[in-house]
């Protein structure tokens, strides 16, 4: 009789144990699978912004680099998908045979567990590279002497990528197509280059290469091989990793990097209304205490326009500004050319 009761109770006990332990294991595994799917999708979306063909290999690679105990790479899938936000990367991490420890007593040997994620990088990323490199130098660091900090910005559009504008610490705002101002104070400017890369003077770069602005720290890092920018020195980014000459980097704006960069460039800029993915509007506001009589009013430039200035006060109280284009999701730029969403690079973000 006792044996019968023990046997019956054991089934119930094992049921509770199975419920507690195996369900917890399932959730723990699913949590890891979700991490793997998220990382895979985000990495794929990030790669897609550089080269559409690289999206899936990169997504697969980071799926492989973030294993779980029961993840099956063969059963997992990565794919391109069309999402409302644009072309996206979908990743599904699968553990096809997750074994139960205690539930096996009750007849449940294993089951499939999966997690999926979708991420989008840039609206219209499938159309090719959408690079928005730019760079800023913190005052007193890098090649610029203290007190003459500068900034440089560059925009590339789809098609032949031309450096539109950049500036140093002095002089009026640089208009697109204006003269090169590589006077030594220029800090970072970049356009990913191939043979279609052009220098700031509008002439083709003398060698394949690129001038890239690497975000990721207080100083943006750049490398370059064109004659126009050979005087630039590599910066050291915040984590202490020097960028090797010739290494390939990619300019990409995120909310964090943009705010940081604007802060460094302007010192008193405030950035509003930035969506976590795309830059939707930028307003630079000069505080009342920082204004100087006779200067142009706060520049901006305009919510809803693809044009704005970054401004700063120079060491001799001169007004300095720089024209930027292509960062705002807007209807037209200053030339009246319609801007399309495909010309804006966004940070990779999860959408599912």
């Amino acid at each position, binding site marked *: 009789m006792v044996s019968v009761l023990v046997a019956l109770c054991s089934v119930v*006990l094992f049921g*509770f144990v199975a419920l*507690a332990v195996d369900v917890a294991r399932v959730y723990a595994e699913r949590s890891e699978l979700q991490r793997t799917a998220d990382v895979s999708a985000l*990495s794929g979306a990030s790669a897609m912004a550089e080269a559409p063909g690289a999206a899936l290999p990169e997504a697969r690679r980071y799926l492989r680099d973030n294993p779980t105990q029961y993840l099956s790479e063969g059963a997992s899938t990565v794919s391109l998908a069309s999402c409302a936000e644009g072309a996206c990367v979908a990743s599904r991490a699968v553990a096809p045979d997750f074994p139960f420890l205690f539930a096996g007593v009750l007849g449940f040997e294993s089951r499939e567990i999966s997690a999926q994620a979708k991420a989008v990088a840039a609206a219209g990323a499938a159309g090719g590279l959408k690079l928005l490199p730019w760079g800023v130098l913190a005052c007193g660091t890098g090649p610029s002497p203290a007190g003459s900090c500068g900034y440089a910005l560059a925009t590339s559009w789809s098609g032949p990528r031309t450096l539109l504008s950049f500036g140093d610490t002095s002089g009026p705002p640089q208009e697109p197509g204006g003269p090169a101002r590589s006077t030594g104070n220029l800090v970072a400017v970049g356009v990913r280059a191939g043979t279609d890369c052009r220098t700031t003077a509008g002439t083709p770069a003398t060698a394949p290469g690129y001038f890239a602005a690497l975000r990721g720290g207080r100083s943006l890092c750049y490398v370059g091989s064109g004659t126009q920018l050979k005087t630039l020195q590599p910066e050291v980014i915040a984590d202490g990793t020097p960028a090797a000459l010739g290494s390939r980097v990619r300019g990409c704006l995120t909310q964090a990097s943009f705010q940081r960069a604007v802060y460094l460039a302007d010192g008193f800029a405030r950035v509003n209304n930035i969506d976590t993915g795309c830059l939707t509007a930028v307003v630079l506001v000069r505080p009342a205490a920082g204004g100087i009589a006779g200067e142009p009013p706060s520049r901006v430039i305009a919510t809803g326009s693809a044009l704005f200035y970054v401004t700063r006060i120079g060491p001799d109280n001169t007004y300095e500004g720089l024209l930027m284009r292509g960062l705002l999701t807007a209807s037209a730029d200053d030339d009246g050319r319609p801007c399309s969403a495909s010309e804006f690079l966004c940070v990779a973000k999860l959408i599912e």
Partner: protein
Amino acid sequence: MPLLLLLVFGIIEFGFIFNRYITLTHAAREGVRLLAIGESSSTATTAAEGSGGSSGASFGSTPISCSASSSGTVARTVGMRCASTYNLRLLDLLPLPNAVPLTSEAKMRKE
């Protein structure tokens, strides 16, 4: 009765362990994401270690400790590894290892 208590305590103890493990997974994922979007190693590490809060710490877990890593050309791949140790409290009378090391790691492509 001893068997019943063992099972009950085991369930509770494993619950805490799994909770801690999931917290670690999330911490690593949050940390590596910050690294991927360009935050500094110290910022990302601090954020990852803070993302777990004090969850589980009052019941035998050591604080989450994270470390950042990078690899590849121009540090293209960034990683965050988070670790914590759970010290058994309910089952520590059993001849089992008292300290259960827990780790979780995530790697992501730097944008």
